[in-house]
């Protein structure tokens, strides 16, 4: 059977800040900017957390205090590089056996200007093996959660 190899998702953004600040806000400060719609928890997302060290957890915390794992920190090299394990399946649930990688690089472009590049790779691992094995979509935080998240993203983009 042919393995489907989707290209990695690549995005980049330039921010008017030093490399150090950009890295710090992305990691320790993730709770201050992570969109509250971007969650797989059952409740309303209160904050997002990246523990600032290799092996650290990456998770969401709901307003009721419940936490939901999203992945972990694979590489923590301030201020230039961060690799996160995204362990959320295509059914929008945490799966400890699944690892896709999200790499962030922070590069100085000029004084007070930083380019942040993101690559989300190994997306083929989100593919049919997992999809067929774990296809109960009715669970809380399943497809419905993914759809509302996605709809919010589209609305936001369309609203510009």
């Amino acid at each position: 059977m042919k393995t489907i190899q989707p290209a990695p998702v690549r995005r980049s953004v330039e921010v008017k800040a030093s490399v150090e600040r950009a890295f710090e806000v992305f990691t320790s400060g993730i709770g201050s900017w992570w969109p509250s719609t971007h969650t797989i928890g059952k409740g309303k997302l209160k904050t997002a957390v990246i523990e600032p060290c290799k092996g650290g957890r990456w998770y969401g915390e709901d307003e009721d205090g419940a936490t939901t794992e999203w992945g972990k920190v694979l590489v923590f090299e301030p201020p230039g590089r961060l690799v996160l394990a995204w362990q959320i399946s295509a059914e929008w649930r945490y799966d400890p056996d699944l690892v896709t990688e999200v790499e962030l690089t922070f590069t100085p472009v000029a004084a007070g200007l930083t380019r942040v590049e993101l690559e989300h790779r190994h997306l083929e691992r989100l593919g049919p093996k997992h999809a067929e094995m774990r296809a109960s979509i009715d669970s809380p935080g399943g497809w419905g959660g993914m759809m509302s998240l996605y709809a919010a993203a589209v609305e936001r983009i369309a609203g510009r």
Partner: protein
Amino acid sequence: MANAQQALTALADPTRRRVFERLASGPAAVGDIAAGLPVSRPAVSQHLKALKQAGLVSDRPEGARRVYRVDPAGLGAIRGWLDQFWTVALDAFKEEVERREKAQVEKGKGK
């Protein structure tokens, strides 16, 4: 190639979503799906057609029946979705970094 927008549009219809969810629990033919839902066979066929166009399901003949299943190539839709996801996240990140940087500069001026 199906994109995330198509996938969203295809699943916006609640009945169509139920058809998709039914397939997520295992491959099925039109008749099987219609039997489990308060929808006619022709209506189910129409929904399957839309899901197929969006890259969410695929079909193949098995004997006299045509069996539908969740399409692995729906990965295209997942990829498109993640692309949007990160665009929104990075925009929010940029906004926050620059807000902080600006606050810092203004604080510096005030001294």
